[in-house]
């Protein structure tokens, strides 16, 4: 396998095209061009070193196109919206609310597609900013490995975004205006997270978008779409999930805390530094638990919820213990932390749903 290298300055008009299309024309041949290094130049016109690979020399383990597309959408991360939605459905059944199957199921799928499109847009933007080099465990790496170009991922994002609008439309139209503003906020949230002109993630407002979109705003929206109803329990359930998503988001940021070269997201954890950021993650989990306790205390949630959630506590404690054992953000003990946080979110979601369904029986 022979690689060639080419260096392009940031102000080179060819650069954006190479980054978007993932190919470069040299010696009358088309090569895959994958960014490998960034060279800081004193005049501010940084250079990017691209590795040029002949398409035939690409990794032998490239999955099928379908598998690559699924990987691009980061399916395991769909727990951020899938989990709360399932929790809301289970809660609604527990409360014997009137279920609207068409609007409910379409809205459910619509939200998943919306999140998938957010992933796609986010990954493209991070890639164009050179934040995502392969090897960071929570990144899917489909663009970095040359499996899909940034432009292809962007197109996938647009397609899934449009699909999500289509899927969510029946619920919005049949809601009598209840869901209109929530839906608009949801769409703006997705589009503003990493895309121009707002780029909330890079301006330090990612938590303000992430929390409601995976938390109370989401749970309230689905409850109204699927049941035409909502209450304090729905909001508390959403709040709990929102904090879990935040915790997972902070966990993913630890690996990048020492990465000062790239223009990554300006999370609160980055501003606080590693030692304080650990407390932030712990507080997020405690806040998630506290929301459930309040819900139980106010009579919204059954006792089975508390019992089942206890099963997740040992995992959470082991996870947090590992975090506190690590000497710093570069510690190997943190290598699997982002994935563990996602899995913990998923586990909480399953247990909460089970608790509601058991109570229903």
């Amino acid at each position, binding site marked *: 396998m022979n*690689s060639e*290298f080419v*260096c392009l300055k940031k102000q080179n008009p060819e650069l954006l095209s190479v980054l978007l299309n993932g190919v470069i024309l040299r010696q009358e041949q088309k090569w895959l061009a994958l960014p490998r*290094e960034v060279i800081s130049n004193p005049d501010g016109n940084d250079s990017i070193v691209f590795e040029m690979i002949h398409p035939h020399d690409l990794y032998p383990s490239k999955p099928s196109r379908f598998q690559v597309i699924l990987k691009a959408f980061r399916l395991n991360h769909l727990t951020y919206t899938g989990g709360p939605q399932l929790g809301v459905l289970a809660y609604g059944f527990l409360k014997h609310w009137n279920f609207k199957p068409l609007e409910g199921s379409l809205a459910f799928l619509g939200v998943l597609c919306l999140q998938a499109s957010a992933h796609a847009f986010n990954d493209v933007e991070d890639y164009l900013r050179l934040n995502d080099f392969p090897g960071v465990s929570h990144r899917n790496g489909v663009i970095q490995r040359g499996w899909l170009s940034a432009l292809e991922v962007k197109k996938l994002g647009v397609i899934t975004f449009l699909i999500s609008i289509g899927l969510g439309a029946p619920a919005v139209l049949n809601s009598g205006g209840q869901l209109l503003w929530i839906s608009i906020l949801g769409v703006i949230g997705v589009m503003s997270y990493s895309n121009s002109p707002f780029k909330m993630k890079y301006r330090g407002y990612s938590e303000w978008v992430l929390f409601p979109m995976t938390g109370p705003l989401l749970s309230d929206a689905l409850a109204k779409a699927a049941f035409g109803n909502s209450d304090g329990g729905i909001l508390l359930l959403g709040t709990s999930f929102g904090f879990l998503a935040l915790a997972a988001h902070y966990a993913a940021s630890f690996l*990048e805390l020492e990465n000062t070269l790239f223009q990554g997201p300006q999370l609160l954890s980055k501003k606080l530094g590693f030692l304080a950021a650990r407390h932030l993650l712990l507080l997020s989990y405690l806040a998630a638990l506290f929301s459930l306790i309040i819900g139980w205390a106010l009579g919204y949630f059954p006792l089975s919820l508390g019992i089942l959630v206890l099963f997740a506590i040992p995992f959470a404690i082991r996870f947090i213990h590992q975090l506190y054992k690590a000497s710093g953000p*570069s510690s190997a003990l943190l290598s699997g932390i982002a994935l563990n946080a996602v899995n913990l979110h998923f586990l909480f979601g399953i247990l909460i749903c089970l608790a509601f369904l058991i109570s229903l029986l």
Partner: protein
Amino acid sequence: MVLDWLPPETALAVEKLNLALNVFSVPEIDQLLSKTVLFRGKKFRPTLCFLTGQLIGLDFPSLEPYARAAEFVHAATLAHDDVIDESPVRRNRPTLNARSSNARAVLAGDLLLARVMAELSQLGEIQIIHDLSNTVEELVHGEWLQLEARKIAKVSRTHLETVARKKTASLMIWCCTAPVRLKRMDDSFIPLFQMFGECLGIVFQMIDDIIDYDLKSEKPFGHDLREGLVNFVTLELLEENPKLYEPVQKLLGDKTNFKNWPWSTLELQYACDRVRARACAKLEVATHILDQIQFKSQGALNQTALQAFQSILIYLRKRAK
């Protein structure tokens, strides 16, 4: 060898570098060190020091204390590393701890560091001393991170690069920047020489990791894995073949003489190729930085030394491929 590319005068300066300690209080330490960590080393760090100094117009006598300091710090880390790793052999000879004891090896390393402080403090270059103390801190942190990573298969690239930067590259960075400070060059040169030193250090580490999986090398095959450590090649293997995580996790730290490795020859070949490509990408960066230094200096650099640096980069590129 890298040293084959040196200008004759630089090679002579490196060869004649005085590494005698003359520890009158405890002569045994002198003998132990001269037979182990100070015995026939490649002296790459002093070479870097001399060559950088020559590049920017410094004379060798003024560089000698700093070249000596670099070699002593490197030797100290080797002495301490051998205790941590419980290594009986280095460079085909018994290690310091094997010849005497762990306690004496630690003390000998401490003595080297103390001697560095004593000698450099007499020269009065506070900023250079400050940089070196930061470097030693980086070395310690790098070793600490590596200790934490023992027997963990799922390490990230960020972790490996951080360890390489701290353990291998940090001292090379100092070797490149100390002459620049000594010459009182403009501060804007410092980041360039830092980046150059960092690139060299990381490339060295990557090449070392490739050699670790070379059957023809002097080191036992998969030595890092036996020591419980994932290196750059192992990382590429695991990233491309996630099914290998479990078998590799079982292998980590297992020092029994096993021959049945869980990966195929093709998988290992591709992993090595990926690391080679990354090393070449780093060398591209180093080449560009050297060009930037040359441009910024407006022709004031020593051309012989510049050619030597370019030759070293070409040599490393060939070595990586």
